[in-house]
């Protein structure tokens, strides 16, 4: 390690920022040393994103100390922050899809030949050097469209390195990555740390924080709570600091009586997505679907619900055949589906909270052919209250809520249909610990009321904690059906990577 007297790369202290009447940050703080990977944690709405945006030059702070590499700074644009040596890698980078990887890397600062012509050869060469340094294999000549999110993040990181950024902030970079991709990202991050750069890592996943980071800073309700060395703390302590109270068991699945078969899926096939998928889900049962990202888990769920079609096979709900590609028929039969992407698929984000909650049941709300806002409001009010949605008013657009409350709104909208089968795809992605526990408790309660639940999740601990049975999907096939008492992380991971091994062996 280096001499302790060295100036920290980033110092924020007593930083505050308000938007209109709401104070997003009252007293934010963090001190990041060079050669360190620093975790920044907090519930949604704790002020992490606001603090990152201040550092990135998106927002200007209302007051407080902001020092970067020893100098007091005040960025009024992202360009200024970038020029100073700060790079922010977002959860979902926005590359130009029709340009090549190298063109994206050197956007706005392409190497030039005489006559102001773009020197492509130099561009490709420099890109390759960068990728080599990061230890990844990416073709600089390929078009960005179709690159995985993981590869897109690597490009953003490469861009930051080529700009010689001293501070890299990664905002939930692993949310959409599979296990292998996470490992590669971590290897890259450790390499950058060893070069003496400072990294800030934001994540809701504790396994990752403990695997990668050396220091952790906790924010709560817009204020700094504590900074500790990772080695000196534990998960329970950090969670307690985040929520300001002790949190009990995170995954409280209580045993529920298992009833008759509710969902029966038989030999479902869809070319290029999944093959020969059969399974059953019974009343009161939570069936977890685990597997790597891209294994076909969401595709199966979408086909069962009917937003996508399939080539062959059948779906039965309570003994009734469900027609293909007809979500309304599925809903009528008693199916509910909380999709993966709540902003794009789960909610009409610009629509009001009331209309969102009432959107699936509105046919039943119409009286003598008239559907009024009043009846929608009343129904929405009931379900929002049951799910403890927090909002200023029910006619506000859904975008005004935090991620956790948006997810509760999606759940409210579907529970209002009083379904017999609830499919949830990544029900707790990107939501804070408190809400996460609430969602888990809710799913457990619903199972107790005799609802059959299918839960897709990339978070292994969530699947193992909640599910009565775990189905593991690997490359479009169900490779394991494991009962609760036999479901260990090793058993699931083995099944999730099974086909790779057999293929490699053959």
């Amino acid at each position, binding site marked *: 390690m280096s001499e302790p007297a060295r100036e920290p790369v980033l110092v924020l202290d007593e930083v505050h920022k308000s938007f209109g*009447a709401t104070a997003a940050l009252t007293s934010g703080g963090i001190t990041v040393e060079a050669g360190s990977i620093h975790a920044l944690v907090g519930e949604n709405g704790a002020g992490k994103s606001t603090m990152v945006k201040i550092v990135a030059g998106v927002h200007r702070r209302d007051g407080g100390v902001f020092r970067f590499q020893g100098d007091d700074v005040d960025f009024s644009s992202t360009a200024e922050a970038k020029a100073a040596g700060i790079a922010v890698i977002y959860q979902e980078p926005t590359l130009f899809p029709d340009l090549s990887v190298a063109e994206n890397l050197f956007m706005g600062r392409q190497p030039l030949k005489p006559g102001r012509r773009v020197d492509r050869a130099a561009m490709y060469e420099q890109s390759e050097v960068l990728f080599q340094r990061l230890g990844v294999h990416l073709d600089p000549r390929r078009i960005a469209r179709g690159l995985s999110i993981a590869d897109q993040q690597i490009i953003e990181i490469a861009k930051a390195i080529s700009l010689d950024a001293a501070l890299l902030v990664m905002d939930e970079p692993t949310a959409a990555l599979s296990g292998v991709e996470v490992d590669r990202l971590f290897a890259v991050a450790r390499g950058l740390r060893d070069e003496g750069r400072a990294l800030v890592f934001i994540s809701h996943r504790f396994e990752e924080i403990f695997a990668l980071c050396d220091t952790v800073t906790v924010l709560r309700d817009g204020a700094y709570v504590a900074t500790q060395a990772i080695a000196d703390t534990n998960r329970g302590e950090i969670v307690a600091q985040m929520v300001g109270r002790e949190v009990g068991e995170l995954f409280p699945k209580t045993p529920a009586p298992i009833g008759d078969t509710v969902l029966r899926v038989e030999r479902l096939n869809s070319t290029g997505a999944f093959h020969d998928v059969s399974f059953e889900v019974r009343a009161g049962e939570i069936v977890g679907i685990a597997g790597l990202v891209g294994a076909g888990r969401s595709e199966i769920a979408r086909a069962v619900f009917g937003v996508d079609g399939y080539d062959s096979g059948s779906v039965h709900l309570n003994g009734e055949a469900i027609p293909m590609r007809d979500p309304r028929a599925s809903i009528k039969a008693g199916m509910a*589906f909380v999709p993966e992407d709540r902003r*794009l698929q789960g909610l009409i984000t*610009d629509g009001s909270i009331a209309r969102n909650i009432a959107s699936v049941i509105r046919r039943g709300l119409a009286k003598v*052919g*008239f559907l009024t806002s009043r009846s929608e409001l009343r129904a929405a009010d009931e379900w929002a209250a049951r799910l403890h949605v927090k909002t200023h008013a*029910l006619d506000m657009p859904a975008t005004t809520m935090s991620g956790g409350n948006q997810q509760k709104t999606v759940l409210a909208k579907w529970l209002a249909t009083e379904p017999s089968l609830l499919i949830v795809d990544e029900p707790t992605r990107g939501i804070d610990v408190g809400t996460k526990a609430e969602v888990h408790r809710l799913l457990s309660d619903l199972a107790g009321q005799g609802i059959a639940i299918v839960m897709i999740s990339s978070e292994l601990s969530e699947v193992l904690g909640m599910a009565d049975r775990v189905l593991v999907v690997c490359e479009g096939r169900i490779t394991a059906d494991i009962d609760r008492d036999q479901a260990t992380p090793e058993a699931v991971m083995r099944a999730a990577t099974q086909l790779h091994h057999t293929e490699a062996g053959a």
Partner: protein
Amino acid sequence: MTSLNFRAHARPAWRRLLFTREAAVIAILAAVLLYANLAVSNFDSPLTMYYLFLDVTPLLLIALPLTMVIVTGEIDLSVASVVGLSSVLVGVLYAHAGMPMWTAALTAIAVGAVCGSLNGFLVAYVGLPSLAVTIGTLALYRGVAIGLLGTEAVTDFPETWTDLAKTRIVEGGSLPLVLVPIAVLAAATAWLLHFSPFGRGVYEVGLGREAAHFTGVNVERTKFLLFVLTGAVSALAGVYFTLRYGSARGDNAYGLELQVIAAVLLGGVSIFGGRGALHGPIAGVLLIGAVSSAMRLEGQTVNAINIVIGVLLVASVVATPVLNRVAAERAARKPKRKE
């Protein structure tokens, strides 16, 4: 309303009703009517009002279904060509094929629905952009209309029918009888868009078609039906147009599509979909009608009238982002006042 756990509305009722694009257009319409009544001679005569209503009838009719198409985020530029085609069909079927007027009119409306279903099929089920599709069918339907009748015109319609288009509700009054079916159609459209589950789906398609799909809205069918409805109503406007002027011609209502779209956008409907309410476009049509009528009485040319309408449209489109910006800046300044 019985007690709720949540506040139903973020803003008090008067602000919700007053601070809308629709309210602004209605206010401008009221101002124009007031000014014209005071300053333009003869504007307040029953005859001026009567002709104003007769003139805006085709616009008013087409604006009703077109508003819904635009709320889904699509556009139909072929409406005026369907008016022309329907007009020609009424003429040809009545005068050349010897059909009774009833049958000729209903056939023309049915053909309008077929025209709309071609637009709807290409947009909703094939997935082509509506702008491109309806630029194509704009030319196609107009071409067929002119091809059927050439430069001729059919003018010998039965007087009972042509009179029907001009009858007043009260003899010597300012309200033509056509306002009655229009009021019925407007009420039906208002129900469909604002008080039916289908209408909620129309907005959802405009605001987020993927989320609408995941919620069980049949996105394709919603768009398809609206295009069919727009075709049928445009053809109905074509029948009216023919009777009003007693003349079936291939170039009837040439360029009318831009006026209708201008009126709908003037009425606060977002061209990007998802926003707008039916009373806005109705006020927009009446505003265009009132401005045209008042300026014509003042002896202004069509060109001058178009310039004023154009300025109104651009101003109304620019007004929203500017007003939002002002509101946002005011909101941002608020907490500082407290300090």
